[in-house]
């Protein structure tokens, strides 16, 4: 068990390392560097050379990679192209905002999705299931920006309850984003509830048709006890990985929604960095997103192992 976790951790570290190399190599391969981006039209001759010297860009790529990776390990992503802003501080703010948005969406979305999925699975092919499942497909197919625009139309323009976009600055305390971030959270919830719900539904259907549930019926176990005690522990296991992917997707910055609502999260920072050719920031965010994906999936794997007696107890009979 412990050995397995250590193995997965090591594998995760290797993945992150590979990603860091790919990011660095990709940025290297692009024409231009931080200095040409910063100096723009003046990027030539002495000025360019001086700039490169001061940023250490004249050193060999391997040295610069080691330097960058080393600092990143310590949590320091260096300075932005403007030469002043510490990237780590700026990114931390945005991460906080993204977590706020994600937490809002997850806190409502995951329980709702599981409830709807179980409900639809138990009442399979009956009107209630058909309504819920159809709505889920609808929510999945409507593009986020359409849903976002409709919400703006309803809440900001018709009802006038909320501002159409988030105006709170990025460094404001978390509470200040309330209730402005609600429409953004609703859009995210819609998309993710649909995914998780469909997964849970099919899993519940499968488990409810399994031999051990049939056996529980024939043992005289009351219906709801079968659902909660016998079926759900098995049925919800596959949901863990879907939830994990959703969490990673939310934390990695939901670009479209953040842009539409002008929400100062990681996704918008990424878009801004790309349009500014702010290479150090792009590097930092990409690496951070990779770490998030690896970390969340690792957590999900470990959680699945802990919750599944078959995997947890590897003793007993071998195959």
């Amino acid at each position, binding site marked *: 068990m412990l050995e397995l976790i250590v193995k997965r951790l090591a594998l995760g570290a290797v993945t992150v390392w590979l990603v860091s190399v790919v990011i660095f190599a990709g940025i290297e391969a692009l024409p231009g560097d931080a200095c040409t981006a910063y100096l723009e039209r003046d990027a030539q001759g002495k000025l360019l050379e001086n700039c490169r010297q001061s940023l250490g860009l004249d050193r060999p790529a391997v040295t610069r990679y080691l330097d960058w990776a080393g600092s990143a390990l310590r949590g320091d992503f260096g300075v932005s192209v403007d030469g002043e802003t510490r990237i780590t501080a700026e990114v931390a703010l945005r991460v906080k905002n993204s977590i706020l948005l994600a937490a809002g969406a997850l806190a409502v979305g995951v329980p709702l999705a599981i409830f709807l999925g179980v409900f639809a699975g138990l009442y399979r092919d009956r009107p209630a299931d058909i309504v819920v499942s159809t709505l889920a497909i609808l929510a999945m197919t409507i593009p986020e920006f359409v849903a976002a625009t409709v919400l703006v139309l309803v809440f900001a323009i018709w009802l006038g309850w909320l501002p159409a976009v988030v105006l709170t600055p990025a460094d404001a305390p978390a509470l200040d984003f309330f209730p402005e971030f609600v429409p953004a959270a609703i859009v995210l919830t819609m998309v993710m509830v649909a995914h998780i719900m469909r997964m849970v539904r099919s899993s519940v259907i499968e488990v409810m048709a399994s*031999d051990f549930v*049939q*056996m529980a019926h*024939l043992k*005289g176990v009351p219906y709801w006890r079968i659902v909660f005690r016998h079926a759900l522990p098995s049925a919800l296991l596959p949901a863990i990985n879907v939830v994990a992917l959703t969490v990673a997707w939310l934390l990695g910055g939901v670009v479209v929604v953040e842009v539409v609502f002008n929400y100062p999260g990681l996704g918008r920072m990424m878009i801004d960095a790309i349009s500014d050719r702010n290479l150090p920031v792009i590097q930092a965010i990409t690496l951070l997103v990779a770490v998030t994906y690896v970390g969340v999936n690792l957590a999900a794997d470990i959680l699945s192992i802990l919750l599944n007696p078959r995997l947890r*107890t590897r003793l*007993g*009979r071998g195959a």
Partner: protein
Amino acid sequence: MGLDPVIELTELSIGFTGRDGQDVPVLRDVSLAVRPGESLGIVGESGSGKSTVALAAMGFLKHGLRRLTGQVRFDGRDMFALSRQDREAIRGGQLGLIPQNSGQALTPTMRIGAQLCEALRLHCNLAQSQCLPRAEALLAQVRLPDPGAIMQRYPHQLSGGQQQRVAIAMALAGEPRALLLDEPTTGLDVTTQAHILALLRDLAVERNMAMVFVSHDLGVIAHSCQRVAVMYAGEVVLDGPAQEVLKRPAHPYPRALLSAIPRLCDARLPRALDGRPPAPGQGGAGCAFADRCAMVQTGCRQVHPDLTRAPGGQTVRCLRADEVVALTPHAADRPALRHGPSGDVALHLRDVAICYHRPGLAARLLGRDTPPPATVDGISLEVRAGQTLGLVGESGSGKSTILKAVAGLMPPLAGEISARGAVLPTQVRRRRPDTLRKIQMIFQNPDESLNPRQTIEQILAQPLRLYFGLEGVQLRERAAELLETVRLGAHMLDRLPGQLSGGEKQRVAVARAFAAEPDIVLCDEVTSALDVSVQAAVLDLLDDLKRSKHTTYVFVSHDLAVVRALADQVAVLYQGRLCEAGPVEQVYSGPSHPYTALLLNAVLEPVTGHAPHLEAEDVVELSPPASGCPFQRRCPRKLGRICDTESPPEQMGADGHSIRCHIPRAEL
């Protein structure tokens, strides 16, 4: 018996609504009754509706099924008219079910103790504190060693036999008056099966329970039931005392079933029952069995036979019942055994050892790796061309592992495998195409070994294209020819495996193996997923092919009677080590290794009054002992220390019959 029936089904019909809105019956007019202390067996092929009867007796119908007419009464109460609460109180309480596959019927996320306690609390009004000791007592009652430890385990940590015992304990929790057993021992080893049935019989006597055994295995029924009901296409076609039904059945269907069963005492191939039962709703106006019946007359296809009385207290649905009863016993009309001529050595295994254990990365880096005893060790066997070598043993005896090694799928740790004198490379990817062609394998489950998305033609085309470079018309013609050799029509070429019955699928798998024109065919439990009637047909086919193509078989099976019917040479394995090997007559007639004797005695024959001898516990061993005889821990005739420390000597008898045991050959 003047007692009122505990379970009573009266003219029960169950069905579903078909595509055209018509009711399609799955069960038709089934009437059965079981009294306290009585045991009834329900037999039939798969799809005959026997499991539906058992579930209906509990008032349970699978998704989509409906009760059309008739009643199910438990203790005089109509199970389908009761409220949900009342039904739940009866189920698992007074009426227990023991499922076919306990491994899947126990909730995987709950500990055994918790599941037992749940059943106890639901039906006995016990307080939490009383539950645990009661649950332990139940586990002890089903003869599970160390109940305290079992309570803490999850279902997957138990062996198949242990899981089945837990399921029995759970059914006993509610002090049942009747037990329904749905194929209670299918999938278990012969020794385990015999133990479980003995346990069930003792419990039934002790508690005066009524029991309903549902099984396709007439051996199990013969051994455990006083009365037998035979089902065909959703109908009871014969109902009567077990002795009469098994000896002088008044219906041609059970007669055909009986002659399809291979017997230990009979070295001949069983007689196959051709065709398949009609699908629900497809039977014509007449007798459902008419199309497969050897005694069919024109009248049979016009009149649906009613249940009538027949000799020996049987009730039967057959117009010619009196003639059927008068027929000679079934064993006489079997084809005689024909041994293949023996040629050169086709396959030779010399001191083969195989080990599944692979040291992990960490263990290899740290250099601390102590390999356990090899899974399979010291296997030396040879098969002559045109002969069949049977490998028998319980699950975990390494029979399939040896096949994998021969096929090159599992490289041996030591030893050498050679075909026709040429040493085979251990790994399949190192073998030349021609070598690969000569060794083909047929797997246990055709559902898994045939690609469900390929048509039969595509499946058969693969070896033809690969080994013979056939294309186009030639390819299709050859594929059609192959189907003819396995007695399937060319019209099957465009079908998908899902559209075929189990027996037909296995024939396609046989055809695929023979498409390569192999020298050696490895058969891994090829008939154990099939009904007896179909099994007989596949065995017959394999025997025919062996004769006409002069093929060599290595035939793995846990069923000793099947091996008896097909094999020329037999090797008995325990824990991956040879116990006994030799010509089939010698091995089956004795003297035998204690393990062979144990296996032979545990086989259930479809004859009443035959009781298996149970000499040793059906303990599951996880790994072979490090030294001495592999069978030391279970042997009923263990001599002493010598069995633990020294490998038993190979004692040779006539015709190369060898037994590895410390007991002198004369005393075995």
